[in-house]
């Protein structure tokens, strides 16, 4: 209480109204925070429930290892899509991650403020472009180029890689730049003062120091790539077949779910929910990996003065 008129020296009791208000606000904040937890739980429970018949009707093993997917014959093996997602994601990372990390190094370590103020908003803008626009760009511009260069229709992994690698650049670059900026200026100064060049400082001091943060950024970019649906759907060809070259159509978990969801029923629908559950587990594993790495890192640099 900042009541300056109270000069009697008596302490004022907390009013009942204040207590109730404080408690109500605390509850409100808790509920808001809890919505996220609840949503995750509910969605997973729902997906798992809808997917559960596949254990008895398809068999987990056949589902996870079957290489054939045929709705007419009621054969649901998701290997083509698992592999498709893996190939598309891996390729996007191989192209996109170095591009993004080098961009972040440029922004954080090299660029003068004037240049940085042009490039950073441009990178951030990439994240704001709707994925259908990326897909459209892929269909209209990239696919014809790929077709001309490599034959085929231009719809396949290669086009997917190009589009997706651009899409994950902002995710990785932004997070990686945060990781680099969190490295204390002092260790850069120390390196320069030792007579290191800028390149030596970046390569031998700054990048190793930010390593965990950069790996986190790449993993989150990977999550973005694996979950991306619309743009991928538009450019990879969507044939439920195994990888047959960088220009041959393939399909991914996400695109297959979207394509089937509208008309599927029965076992087909169960299989789609099964794929959704797999996607969910993959994302969860990625987030968990990031968490564990961050904790490990903290433990390593913790001071242990007592031992000395």
């Amino acid at each position, binding site marked *: 209480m900042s009541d300056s008129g109270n000069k009697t020296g008596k302490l004022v009791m907390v009013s009942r109204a204040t207590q109730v208000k404080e408690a109500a606000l605390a509850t409100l904040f808790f509920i808001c925070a809890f919505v996220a937890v609840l949503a995750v739980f509910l969605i997973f429970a729902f997906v798992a429930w809808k997917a559960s018949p596949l254990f008895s009707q398809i068999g987990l093993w056949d589902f996870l290892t079957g290489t054939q997917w045929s709705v007419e014959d009621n054969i649901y093996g998701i290997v083509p899509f698992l592999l498709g997602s893996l190939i598309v994601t891996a390729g996007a990372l191989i192209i996109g991650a170095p591009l993004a990390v080098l961009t972040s190094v440029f922004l954080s370590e090299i660029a*003068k403020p004037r240049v940085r103020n042009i490039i950073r908003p441009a990178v951030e803008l990439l994240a704001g472009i709707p994925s259908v626009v990326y897909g459209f760009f892929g269909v209209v511009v990239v696919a014809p180029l790929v077709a001309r260069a490599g034959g085929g229709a231009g719809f396949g992994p290669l086009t997917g890689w190009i589009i997706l690698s651009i899409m994950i650049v902002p995710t990785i670059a932004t997070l990686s730049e945060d990781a680099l900026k969190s490295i*204390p200026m*002092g*260790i850069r*100064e*120390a*390196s*320069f*003062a*030792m*007579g*290191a*060049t800028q390149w*030596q400082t970046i390569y*031998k*001091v700054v990048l*190793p*120091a930010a390593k965990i943060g950069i790996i986190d950024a790449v993993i989150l970019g990977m999550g973005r790539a694996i979950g991306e649906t619309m743009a991928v759907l538009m450019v990879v060809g969507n044939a439920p077949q195994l990888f047959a070259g960088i220009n041959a159509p393939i399909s991914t978990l996400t695109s297959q779910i979207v394509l089937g969801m509208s008309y599927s029923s029965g076992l087909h629908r169960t299989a789609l929910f099964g794929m959704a559950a797999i996607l969910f587990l993959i994302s969860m594993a990625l987030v968990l990996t990031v968490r564990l790495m961050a904790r490990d890192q903290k433990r*390593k*640099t*913790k*001071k*242990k*003065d007592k031992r*000395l």
Partner: protein
Amino acid sequence: MATTTAPGTKYALELVNRPTDATYYVRNMNFWYGDFNALTDISLDVMPHSVTAFIGPSGCGKSTFLRCMNRMNDLIDGTKVEGTMLLNGADIYGSGVDPVDLRRRVGMIFQQPNPFPQSIYDNVAYGPRLQGVKRKSDLDDIVEDSLKRANLWKEVKDILDKNGLAISGGQQQRLCIARVLAVQPEVLLMDEPCSAIDPTSVQKIEDLMTEIKDEVTIIIVTHNMQQAARVSDYTSFFLQEVAGQPAVLVETGKTGDIFTTPIDKRTEDYITGRFG
């Protein structure tokens, strides 16, 4: 070199206007941050095999001046230096001089200990490795020798593979000193090295300064008068009298003289604690 000594500065030791055997020979140096003239007309000799202390109130330009001595200010956009600054007779701001090479010869210790988040061993081996030392046995010798000179060897000899950030702040600062000593610098610049660490480490750092000053000329910026009196052979007093005006070097001389019989009234006032 037709220069005169700075008119405002009091010199207990006569300053000659030709290159001497001084480690640093500074004449009529000015420094700008953009349009702001931060230091004006600094003339000074830094003697070899000795410890020189720069003292003065906060914001008086002593750290800025120190950072001119290994061209660390080059890393800040819009800074400018005028005048003469010779290191063992060579003009460090001469055209074509490589600041990277200069910094190999002039080591620097900062106020906040700043070890790399790598092992203690890798921290000390950093400089030698930059210079191309690869043999494990050579590196081992350099690491041990440098840590010994930095008064840290006994405490860390069994934990060399431990992260440099996992030791105490005072140990970190001595690790930074070892890291610099590993490249055999001619000069060691210390920018308030003891203001953020524990008293035991301060003692050890002051001891090592006395031990190594024959090999490495040491210049230390400090806010601590007692420290300046304890460790330094020469003292220079910097002062910015009016905010927004450039800082000047008020007086420079042997530490004993500065602390007992300062020539300038302002030096006396500062040392006796009347301001700052």
